[in-house]
């Protein structure tokens, strides 16, 4: 019997599940290998028990928390899909603001009608077997992980930094062009796609296991970045991994 797979989406842009839909070359083979029983964006049917549940999005309301708990109960393996789910991602930027004020700003006097809770990662709510990082996830990693899961094992996240993939691609390092890049402390797996296309890495895949943040911050500082700029960069996707900049910028 083909393994049953569900794709679920919480607070997110749905770009990660779209990335799955964009697997044009592999789609038919993929459908041959798995049975997709829940994928609201693409299909009508809904299933109930899953071998693998891919969960996209951050958890930002009590209802979402409830729903993800229910999914957890109905699935053998739960994979958090994308930066929203694994890091809080862009959604977590709001946690840096006073949530009360955020609501007031958007809804004015009606703010009390719109409860919002602090953005949470999926693993803050339920146990997760694998975190597939990226904003959006990489097609390659999605396929690799899916195949590995089909073979009955949970893969191990890459121990390497984005720089390794950037070097493999033979890219001109952005630092060489005077642009700061978080590739050295960011977990690989995206193929260094941003540096390859001229953008600096902003760590959408989260940090490596043992990031040398102290050194990275000093480097950013030496490139003329202000405290605010360093903070923006380090929190764009990683608000939930706070970094103490005080020791580097006091004096």
């Amino acid at each position: 019997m083909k393994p049953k797979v569900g794709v679920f989406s919480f607070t997110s842009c749905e770009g990660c599940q779209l990335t799955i839909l964009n697997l044009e070359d592999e789609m038919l083979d993929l459908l041959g290998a798995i049975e997709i029983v829940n994928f609201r964006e693409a299909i009508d049917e809904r299933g109930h028990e899953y071998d693998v549940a891919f969960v996209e999005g951050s958890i930002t309301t009590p209802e979402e928390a409830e729903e993800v708990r229910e999914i957890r109960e109905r699935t053998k393996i739960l994979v958090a899909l994308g930066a929203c789910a694994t890091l809080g991602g862009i959604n977590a930027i709001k946690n840096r603001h006073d949530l009360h004020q955020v609501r007031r700003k958007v809804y004015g006097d009606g703010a009390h009608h719109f409860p919002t809770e602090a953005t949470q990662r999926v693993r803050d709510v339920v146990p997760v077997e694998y975190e597939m990082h990226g904003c959006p996830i990489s097609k390659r990693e999605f396929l690799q992980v899916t195949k590995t899961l089909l073979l009955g094992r949970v893969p191990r996240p890459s121990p390497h930094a984005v720089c390794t993939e950037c070097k493999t691609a033979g890219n001109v390092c952005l630092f060489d062009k005077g642009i700061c890049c978080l590739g050295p402390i960011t977990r690989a797996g995206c193929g260094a796609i941003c540096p390859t296309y001229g953008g600096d890495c902003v760590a959408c895949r989260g940090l490596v296991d043992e990031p040398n943040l102290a050194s990275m911050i000093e480097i950013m500082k030496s490139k003329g970045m202000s405290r605010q700029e360093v903070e923006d960069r380090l929190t764009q996707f990683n608000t939930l991994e706070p970094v103490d900049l005080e020791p580097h910028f006091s004096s």
Partner: protein
Amino acid sequence: MKTLVLSKMDVPGLVEALGETARLIGPRKKEHQFVFGQITKPEQLALEYPTTILPPSRQLFPNDEPLVRLRLDDVAASREIVEGEKTILLGVHPCDVQGINILDEVFSDSPPDANYLTRRSQTIIIALECQAPCSPYNLCFDKGTYRLEWGYDLLMIDLGDRYFVFTRTGAGEELIGDLPFFRAATPADREALGRARETQAGSFKTRLAGPVNRLPNALKEAYDDLLWEAVGRRCLSCETCTNVCPTCYCFDVADEVELDLVNGTRCRQWDSCQSCTFAEVAGGENFRPRPSERQRHRLFKKEVYQYEKYGRSACVGCGRCSAQCVASIRLNEMYNQVLGG
């Protein structure tokens, strides 16, 4: 050995002719830097380049190299994948040629690695001598790697409007066999060569505080030096230094499976002793858990371990690791510290 001359005007013709006989790999411009890549049109070739991002040796030892074709339902159906096609590496600087020679030694060492050697045995190297140092970090003068005595098939030296060409191997001579672009060198060419070499020698300078042959012992004495701690504090473990090194060859092996879950490939990927899990074993024990230890291992591997095993340093002085380190960790500075400079 033959001595020939190639007019620069004939380079495009040569490129086209070579491209017809083999896969031609040479330096190409990438933004403001250079990379080795396939040359399909003469204008892609950029022979006047300081250095490339990745060394040409990586062409012989590609990332994600397939080793074994696998059938998941039958191990007995495993088949080797040993690939190679006739390739010409054109415009390889002396240090990089020696980098390739060092890989040759490692992969020929018992037991020999058929994957590398097969690719290598079909590769012709056309070296190109440098006229001046390519960066503030290279150590090729100190290391004696700015000129070549062997390890190449053809060697080109820039004489302004033409290249002086030495043939070194039969394969090299055969390659240019009847091509109309070469003529025998005349006494005037030789004189010009002499002058070019003099200028060249004058432009390279020593960057080390002591003789390079003191390095192995100086490093050994500095095994417990605080230098490593200082370097370790800055190191980001991003692996760039080893990825851009012409003589690094550490790898990992992993299986890739197709969606049919029946066919697969066992591949090797570049790996690096700078990765934090490189020396970790089951149970979590890590034999080189700290960046300081890993940086020390990198230098020791080049200057001590390889030296003791093969009789020469595995650092060819290309300067890439220093030039490309985001944390500004400079090999020459570290060497100078242990040499007491």
